[in-house]
């Protein structure tokens, strides 16, 4: 076994810095199969080893990667991708149209039961090779964010041999600038630079990934050099990292959106005035300052501030306890109302802050703090079960990446009502459903903007949820580490990263 993560500075060659880069995250990988997970931190570990047709960028639409160009037919249903020639998987096999087609066929195969298939199965009807380096997708419905979806880690092109081996859960096989070396479970993942890489070689010689769920350990690891990069930092340790001259902090607006789904099928939240009142009773700026140390964005729309087409509405998403009291009085709760909200252990401080804020307007928040498994079962329970338990709301967080449809649809569309989806408060408004559908399929940018603005305006008015905040992505690094790219949502991209 290799020793614990000290920097191995090997002789430099060429113009780039060489050496091993060690990264510590708060959880280990769920799998080495990009199609069989939905975790951001797993995606970060897999990203150096796998590539998709397109590469996500921290700003703007995806760039070419394994595909060099693409066209969408006029019906917006058929997409044709030209693949890069001369690319080989780490096992030596050629990356060609049949490999890409089989990779996506596996992803959308309902019998494969892959955890990362959720976004793709409802969308992709068929994938086929249309030439040695040409792949054609047939969509079930027009989807303007198709390319953004293809940039997700789950849409990586996996080696057919790695799939056939039956060991892809444990042994990664892709085309990326780093190749899988070792996964010592509960300990570390090691990746070595891919000597046969088609593109510019990675700057670091090797990547070593470790993990600890203890926030203070991430900070200690940065200081000892056990980690060159640590993410996600908690706000407390982000502040200390920023103040430490040997370390640097990268922070940017993130996609982790916090909200409380209000049970629209249960009194008092069947009354829109009560739902609006809670929104007005919430001092989001104080929550961000007090709980996140300022590392967050108060919500001003039902989308994260980095999501395209977000339309902040500070006039209607504002702190106004006087208005909250009036709305509650109009709804017949002048003398106060008691509500039960299910929360996870981690969100206890947030819930207590809300409890104090809402008490000011006469709302008595009954915090139901639940262990992870119980919480998941409670959150996704159908209306009858929630009514029986008196669950008026569920405090939750959601990270959609940067696809507005992956936030508005699962959280607010009628068809996503729990237990089928994450519309945990059973909100249903056919007009908003139509807006969400139309916006998802609209290829004209201005038209999409108009539709998403209307959907957000209507959602703020209907108030199916208390909108809280988004957490910033907080990445700590040792001074001298360069080239680290952070995607919105906190996923690291390390192909250009190196230690000093």
């Amino acid at each position: 076994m290799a020793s614990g993560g000290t920097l191995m500075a090997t002789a430099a060659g060429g113009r780039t810095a060489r050496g091993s880069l060690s990264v510590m995250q708060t959880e280990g990988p769920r799998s080495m199969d990009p199609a069989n997970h939905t975790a951001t931190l797993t995606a970060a570990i897999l990203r150096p080893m796998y590539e998709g047709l397109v590469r996500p960028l921290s700003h703007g639409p995806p760039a070419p990667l394994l595909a060099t160009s693409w066209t969408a037919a006029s019906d917006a249903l058929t997409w044709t991708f030209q693949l890069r020639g001369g690319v080989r998987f780490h096992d030596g096999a050629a990356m060609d149209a049949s490999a890409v087609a089989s990779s996506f066929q596996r992803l959308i195969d309902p019998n494969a039961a892959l955890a990362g298939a959720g976004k793709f199965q409802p969308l992709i009807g068929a994938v086929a090779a249309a030439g040695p380096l040409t792949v054609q997708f047939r969509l079930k419905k027009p989807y303007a964010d198709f390319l953004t979806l293809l940039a997700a880690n789950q849409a990586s092109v996996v080696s057919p041999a790695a799939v056939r081996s039956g060991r892809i859960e444990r042994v990664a096989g892709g085309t990326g600038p780093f190749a899988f070396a070792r996964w010592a479970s509960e300990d570390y993942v090691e990746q070595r630079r891919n000597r046969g890489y088609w593109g510019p070689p990675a700057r670091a010689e090797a990547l070593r990934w470790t993990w600890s769920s203890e926030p203070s350990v991430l900070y200690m690891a940065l200081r000892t050099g056990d980690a060159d990069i640590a993410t996600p930092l908690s706000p407390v340790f982000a502040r200390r990292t920023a103040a430490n001259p040997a370390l640097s902090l990268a922070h940017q607006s993130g996609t982790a959106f916090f909200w409380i789904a209000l049970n629209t099928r249960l009194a008092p939240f069947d009354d829109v005035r009560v739902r609006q009142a809670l929104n007005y009773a919430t001092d989001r700026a104080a929550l961000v300052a007090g709980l996140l140390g300022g590392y967050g964005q108060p919500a001003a729309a039902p989308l994260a501030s980095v999501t395209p087409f977000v339309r902040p509405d500070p006039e209607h998403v504002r702190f106004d306890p006087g208005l909250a009291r009036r709305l509650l009085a109009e709804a017949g709760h002048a003398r106060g109302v008691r509500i039960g909200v299910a929360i996870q252990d981690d969100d206890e401080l947030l819930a207590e802050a809300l409890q104090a804020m809402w008490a000011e307007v006469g709302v008595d928040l009954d915090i139901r703090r639940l262990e992870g498994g119980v919480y998941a079962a409670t959150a996704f329970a159908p209306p009858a079960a929630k009514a029986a338990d008196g669950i008026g709301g569920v405090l939750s967080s959601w990270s959609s990446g940067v696809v507005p449809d992956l936030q508005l649809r699962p959280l607010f569309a009628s068809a996503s009502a729990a237990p089928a989806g994450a519309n945990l408060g059973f909100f249903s408004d056919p007009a908003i459903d139509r807006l969400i559908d139309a916006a998802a399929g609209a290829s004209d940018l201005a038209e999409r903007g108009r539709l998403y603005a209307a959907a957000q305006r209507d959602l703020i008015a209907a108030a199916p949820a208390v909108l809280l905040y988004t957490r910033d992505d907080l990445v700590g690094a040792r001074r001298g580490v360069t080239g680290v790219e952070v995607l919105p949502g906190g996923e690291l991209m390390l192909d250009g990263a190196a230690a000093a």
Partner: protein
Amino acid sequence: MTAYVLRKLLTLPAVVLAVSVLIFLAVRLLPGDPARMMAGPEASSAEVARIHAQLGLGQPLPAQYLAFLAHAASGDLGTSIESHRPVTEELADHAPYTLALGLAAYLLAVGVGVPGGVLAAVKPGGAWDRLFSGFTILCVSLANFWVGLMAMELFAVRLQWLPLMGAGSASHLVLPAITLALAPMGLIGRMTRASMIDVLAQDYIRTARAKGLGPFAVNFRHALRNALAPIITIVGLNLGSVVGGAVVTESVFSWPGLGRLLVDAVGNRDYPVVQGVALAAVVAVTLANLAAELVIAFLDPRLRQGLGDGR
């Protein structure tokens, strides 16, 4: 003695079987749906239902238990839901780390606790006794995740004497082993002191001293041997708390043992792994308790005799 050992050994399978029922039920009765946890929040309910069927979670509990037992009897503890590897493989990967950590912690706990307790008992109320008693109280009352974090901050970050975390060399073992050793060290130290004070008040110790035996011979050869039974009992019983402490300690130090595996498995509702680790822990603790009983019986012929008569 042989009959006694055999009889004790025969009770082992019964204990393990009984505990396996408890483990099986405890894991199943945990609220929360593993299929939902596995599928993630983006999954449709159809997908959750399919995973449910795949795991056989829809079957009645007795049927699930019998299937589990039949497989376990043939050495198959199932497949991890999370890693898709056989649970036995996971256990084999992680057990050596926990064994090394537990053994080191135990040697430390006994190596400090027993001599420290003996010396404290020689002069009750003396300087060493007061120091040692204070130390043992701290040992049993400090939470080991806190001790672990403080030790990391001091010895790994500030002084840089020892590695922060992970495994790989003997030096990686030092901080987690000390952290894990503290609680049993305190208990063993206190038990040794109390037991020794009792024995040292006995007439035969006065006789030994009157014969002119030196303090070492009196304290360690005569007194300690007679004080050992309760100490060994505590040592045996404490293995359970060491296994429990390993869960926390391994998580804090990112030590790749069974404890860390268990914490992750519980969080993910990875039933097969939780069952596997819990079963392994039960077998280990049962064996350790048996070993303690045998050692006591070996040291104390009265006990051996009494039990041998079939009381």
